[in-house]
């Protein structure tokens, strides 16, 4: 008699496919994972349908890894279904964790997005104008599309989430480490982010060049300076969010000579990533004079879009709006 292997599912919602690619980037290592589990639902690779999931007993899937944010009615239905069928639901990647890049859409009302894409776009010819319609009859043919909802939500704004794997996308090393935590030994506290609970600076290859105290009179945009490849980016005036961002990626973007943009979210105990990033950055301003502080802050061209790059839907300013 063979022991039953734990059942695992993967699913994606509003995302780019990068999280799926990241899993594939495990290359040979993925075969080791596949050998010890039974993948029961992974639309990208295996031919099991939603119908099959519906037929499974509740809580019969050991763990579901879900990437992507929630924007359409269909995505919400799938999230609820998989929650019900799974013992553990893991939000995989930035979009699922905190809303991600698609979450930037929450700066705009739903209808203005449709208006821009289908009517105002300069190459769009749509004089009538026509918008995609949830229930449309073309002659006698009924066609339906999922509802495009008012806003983007992180997974835990729709269903209960057990763990999070951060990153846009989670790098292969982060994935193997997170999976190791889940399969070996005791599970961490519910709600944990499966990545180191410390700031990115701690594993940055340039940490030794970070001054004891950074004092800035001006923030720089990447196109304004020739970026030194060895020195702390923050010390060069670039908006590196490393001090306010969770470690785990080993500073991949910094190794590319560009600042951290915060995709791994904040360390534990930070409720609002953007507010934390803003206060961290504001603390580096070298001035006591209010006018001057204002002038220095004005050199940050898009504070909300920068500090909430991946976490607008999960932010305190948005979380209150009707879910």
């Amino acid at each position, binding site marked *: 008699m063979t022991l039953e292997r734990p059942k695992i599912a993967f699913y*994606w919602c*509003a*995302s*780019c496919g*990068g*999280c*799926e*690619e990241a899993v*594939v980037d495990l290359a*040979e290592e993925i075969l080791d994972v596949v050998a010890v589990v039974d993948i029961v639902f992974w*639309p*990208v*690779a*295996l*031919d099991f*349908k939603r*119908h099959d999931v519906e037929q499974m007993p509740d809580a019969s899937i050991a763990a579901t890894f879900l990437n992507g944010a929630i*924007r*359409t009615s269909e*995505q919400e239905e799938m999230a609820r279904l998989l929650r019900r069928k799974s013992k553990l639901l893991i939000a995989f990647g930035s979009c699922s964790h905190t809303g991600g*890049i*698609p979450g930037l*859409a929450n700066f705009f009302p739903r209808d*203005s*997005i*449709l208006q821009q*894409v289908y009517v105002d*776009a*300069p*190459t*769009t*010819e*749509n004089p009538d104008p*026509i918008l*995609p319609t949830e229930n*449309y*009859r*073309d002659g*006698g*043919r*009924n066609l339906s*599309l*999922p509802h*495009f909802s008012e806003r983007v939500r992180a997974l835990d704004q729709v269903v209960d989430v057990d763990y999070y794997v951060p990153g*846009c*996308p989670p790098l292969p090393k982060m994935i193997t480490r997170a999976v190791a935590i889940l399969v070996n030994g005791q599970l961490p506290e519910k709600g944990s982010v499966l990545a180191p609970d410390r700031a990115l600076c701690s594993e940055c290859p340039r940490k030794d060049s970070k001054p004891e105290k950074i004092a800035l009179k001006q923030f720089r*945009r990447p*196109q*304004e300076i*020739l970026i030194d*490849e060895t020195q702390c980016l923050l010390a060069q005036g670039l908006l590196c969010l490393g001090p306010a961002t969770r470690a785990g990626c080993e500073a*991949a*973007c910094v190794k*590319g*000579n560009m600042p951290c*943009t915060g995709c791994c979210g904040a360390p534990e105990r930070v409720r609002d990533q953007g507010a934390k990033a803003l206060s961290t950055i504001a603390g580096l301003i070298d001035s006591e004079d209010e006018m001057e502080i204002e002038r220095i802050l004005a050199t940050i*061209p*898009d504070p909300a*879009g*920068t500090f909430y790059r991946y976490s607008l839907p999960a932010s305190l300013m948005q979380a209150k709006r009707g879910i």
Partner: protein
Amino acid sequence: MSNVTVPLEKAWQHSAERAEDEYHHRRITIDPITRLEGHGKIEVFLDDAGEVDRAYLQVPELRGFEKFVQGRPVEEMPQITSRICGVCPMAHHMAATKALDAVYHVVVPAAARKIRELVYTTFMVEDHSLHFYYLGGPDFVLGPDAPAAQRNILGVIEKVGLDRAKEVIRMRRHLRELIALVAGKAIHPVFGVPGGVVKRFTPEMQRLFQAAAEDAVVFATSTLRLFDEAVLDRRDYLDLITSDDYSHRTYYMGVVDEANHVNFYDGQIRVVTTQAVEWKRFSAGDYAGVIAEHVEPWSYAKFCFLKPLGWRGFVDGDETSLYSVAPLARLNAADGMATPLAQQEYRRFFEKLGGKPVHHTLANHWARLIEMLYAAERMRELAADNQLLDPEFRALPTATPTEGVGVVEAPRGTLIHHYQTDQHGIVQRANLIVATQNNAARMAMSVEKAARGLIHRGEVPEGVLNRIEMAFRAYDPCNACATHALPGAMPLMLTVRNREGLVRASLTRSADGHILRSEGR
């Protein structure tokens, strides 16, 4: 309930028409069409004789990038827009970076152009090889009639041998590591800035790229030989490729260099007619005079067409205003390849398939391999160029940012990014023509044609699943591009409904690849 009163007679007539319509248009749903529920579905409607009336290829999702990039600093576009697609993030990153050059009116130093193109061609080798071995290739390497359970990467491994399969995996991994070495990350790179790249190219990098390029040329050449043996030497496969079922006569678009050779990184956009005669050749900045997008109420995706010709619907042939992009289109739109080995293959391609243009959608698979060879050869040329090491790899922009357009050839076709900013470089407006969108209308026609060829008198044969898959896969559509995963069996489900919407019959594929039919009550 609406408060508007409708005259009784009119309401009656309306509901009568509706009932009549319902009766005459039975519906077949294939959902999802590719790998994923929620990212594409096909609806097939039958007329009262049980023949295909219309088939719709629907994209049921929208994220709205063109709106939410408004207000963002334009230099963030290469990183924000790469999140459109995690399978081809490099294409978006590069199109956006080139648009930034134009927005800031900055001349990119030669070293930076070469670094960018080197990384880009490396990406093309990796992406094209992946499509062939993991996704589209299995249809041919194993044959379209092979059981679906074998038509995936594992089946390919069996056929070509484990050593070769390991070589594919190793090659892909190595190329992606090289991309990350220069660009920060393979998925969502960070190296593009207006006026160049942010990181110096080192002699060590050059050595690695040179060695990898040599391997890539050998790899691409041997892959083409594999295609010869598995496909071109077989009459039945050739007949399949050239059959009318898989052909559409449309215009073709692709980026070309000064000599009208295929170029992925830079050049003018060329469009040829259904007879392969040059119809337009224009700079990226003039795209809005040539390309327009049509909206249908039944899909969140827009359909591109040639603006001067006007939207003429989903028709091919002499009356069409549709064009196609991606490998086959690029070969049709160009006069040749810029590298010697690829040029030989280019000639052979058109000789074997009856001259230009080739309208056979399935020929995309062969065209993709020829492009892979070109990318590998171009990678080798660039990697040998010591100008890569030039310390001047960035020009700091000095002009006030305004507006700019960037174009590249993504693996899946022409990709255009267009930004307008205020004087501080904050995006006011963005417009994106995404590769797969250019092919959307032709893809919809291909799907409909496959359905028409197989569904008669209300009978839905099991083969319709494979045929629609094949028609769809040849384009390597972006809303299916993560089918680059293993194993490659595409999940498909086809449901035939009666007029009350109840399931009459459904076809699904079991985990072992057999097609299961279940009859409804």
